[in-house]
């Protein structure tokens, strides 16, 4: 008769011949391996049902096995089950999943930033390069993607001041335009992906500010959890580190806003309102981040409160303040 070592959420059981030989309840439900090991040392020939643990202990494995079946048939006679443990287990798993989700989004945001920088270089280079052949087009088409599309697809038809180049030269420029456009399309895809995922992860933040900006804040904070723990004053200057250092070291003016300056409600506001709007926005971001991280419940009121405050600032500080003499 084989011996089996099986366990459930609450304890480990050595089972043989449809009888529990011995059992150990877990002291720390999150860390059951200690008791399992102790029991296994006493019953080193026993067969496990769980592959992961069996591999860890280099033990025999069979699924399902008689021991497991016996345990699953007799739970009620062994213990009283409580669903609270299950609920916590799920909650922890969700949190862990969303933690790795923010890591994935941070990578995507950093890829986006590098792609954006490269695209800028590439588009500028393409203009200079193709400009040798058809300088008039550079002046006429301002939009980068449109310009690249024309380079890729069209021939120079009119008389141009540009040099008469060989076909292979033009082909190379066209190929560069093509690759740059593909990178540009990937960028759009990447933005869509980041937005969709960040909206799921942070419904409240994404309702308050542009999801892409949320993603950048998380990336700057290092993780979703970090962002949820930052005070509003830090959030306000997140991404303005160079200016902050200048302030601390040389006594320059402290920065009023970091990356949140990218929000049009700040950067299109009159200069004298910006600090106030940034402060209010940062405090609402702090609230929304906590809400998203700890509860995940959607609460329209955070965003509404910000809009009310925004209106108030706009009304109260409508006029440029007079300079003090």
């Amino acid at each position, binding site marked *: 008769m084989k011996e089996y070592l*099986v*366990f*459930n*959420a609450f304890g480990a059981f050595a089972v043989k011949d449809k009888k529990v030989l011995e059992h150990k309840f877990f002291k720390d439900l999150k860390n059951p391996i200690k008791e399992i090991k102790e029991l296994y040392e006493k019953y080193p020939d026993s067969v496990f*049902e*769980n*592959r992961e643990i069996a591999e860890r202990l280099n033990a025999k494995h069979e*699924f*399902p096995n008689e021991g*497991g*079946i016996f*345990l*699953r*048939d007799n*739970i*009620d006679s062994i213990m009283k*089950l*409580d*669903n609270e443990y*299950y*609920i916590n*287990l*799920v*909650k922890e*798993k*969700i949190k862990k*999943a*969303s933690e790795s989700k923010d890591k994935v989004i941070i990578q995507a945001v950093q890829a986006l930033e590098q792609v954006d920088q490269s695209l800028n270089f590439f588009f500028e280079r393409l203009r200079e390069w193709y400009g040798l052949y058809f300088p008039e087009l550079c002046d006429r088409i301002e939009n980068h993607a449109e310009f690249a599309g024309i380079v890729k697809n069209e021939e120079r038809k009119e008389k141009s001041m540009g040099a008469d180049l060989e076909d292979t030269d033009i082909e190379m420029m066209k190929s560069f335009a093509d690759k740059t456009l593909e990178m540009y399309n990937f960028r759009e895809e990447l933005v869509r992906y980041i937005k969709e995922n960040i909206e*799921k992860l942070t419904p409240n933040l994404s309702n308050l500010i542009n999801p892409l900006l949320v993603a950048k804040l998380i990336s700057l904070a290092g993780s979703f959890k970090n962002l949820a723990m930052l005070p509003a004053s830090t959030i306000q200057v997140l991404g303005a580190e160079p200016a902050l250092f200048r302030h601390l070291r040389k006594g320059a003016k402290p920065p009023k806003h970091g990356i949140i300056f990218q929000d049009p409600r700040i950067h299109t506001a009159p200069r004298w309102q910006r600090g106030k709007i940034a402060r209010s926005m940062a405090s609402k971001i702090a609230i929304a981040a906590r809400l998203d991280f700890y509860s*995940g419940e959607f609460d329209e009121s955070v965003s509404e409160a910000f809009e009310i405050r925004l209106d108030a600032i706009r009304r109260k500080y409508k006029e440029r303040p007079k300079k003090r003499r």
Partner: protein
Amino acid sequence: MENIIKKDERIYTKNLVPRETVYNEKLIKFEGMEYRYWDPFRSKLSAAILNGLHDLPLKKNSKVLYLGAASGTTPSHVSDIVENGRVYCVEFSPRAIRKLVNICEKRKNMFPILEDANYPERYAHLIENVDFIYQDIAQPNQTEILIKNSIFLKGYGALCIKARSIDVTLHPEKIFKREKKKLEEHFEVLESLRLEPYAKDHAFFLFKQ
């Protein structure tokens, strides 16, 4: 059928947690007890009963393995029915399970499990052997998933098949026949129903081990 009543062509389950609704369903009083309206458009099990399911072998102390619990609408009614039993609710989507967890917090006989039903080994240690398996997972291999999980079963089960999830190119009737055949290799199929008008191209099978 225990804890289920039928009034004016509608069915209700006895509310395990009086005065609480799960999905804003209507609450009624009947013979001094509170009952929750069981919406057949929201729950395929309700649709099956309304479409003439003869027997639902769930008792007041049944243990149920519910695969594809989603956000918990149907599981909450099963929880009403099995009152003193247990419903192990397996769901793979973290998004869907958030709502389910909220429901479980009020219903002590519901046990949420965030796992993939394709891998029963991963939650074997969290469940017990059950009297009933209910399966409603819109996946191409949903019948196979059910069969895998039957290692936990001593009793009956129900399978709800969505034709479009299995193969959009085949005629639903063909799919239902094929899936029923698979079932019959492992179980005795007791009843077969279609769920129109409540759900399009869905079939419902009640089976016994």
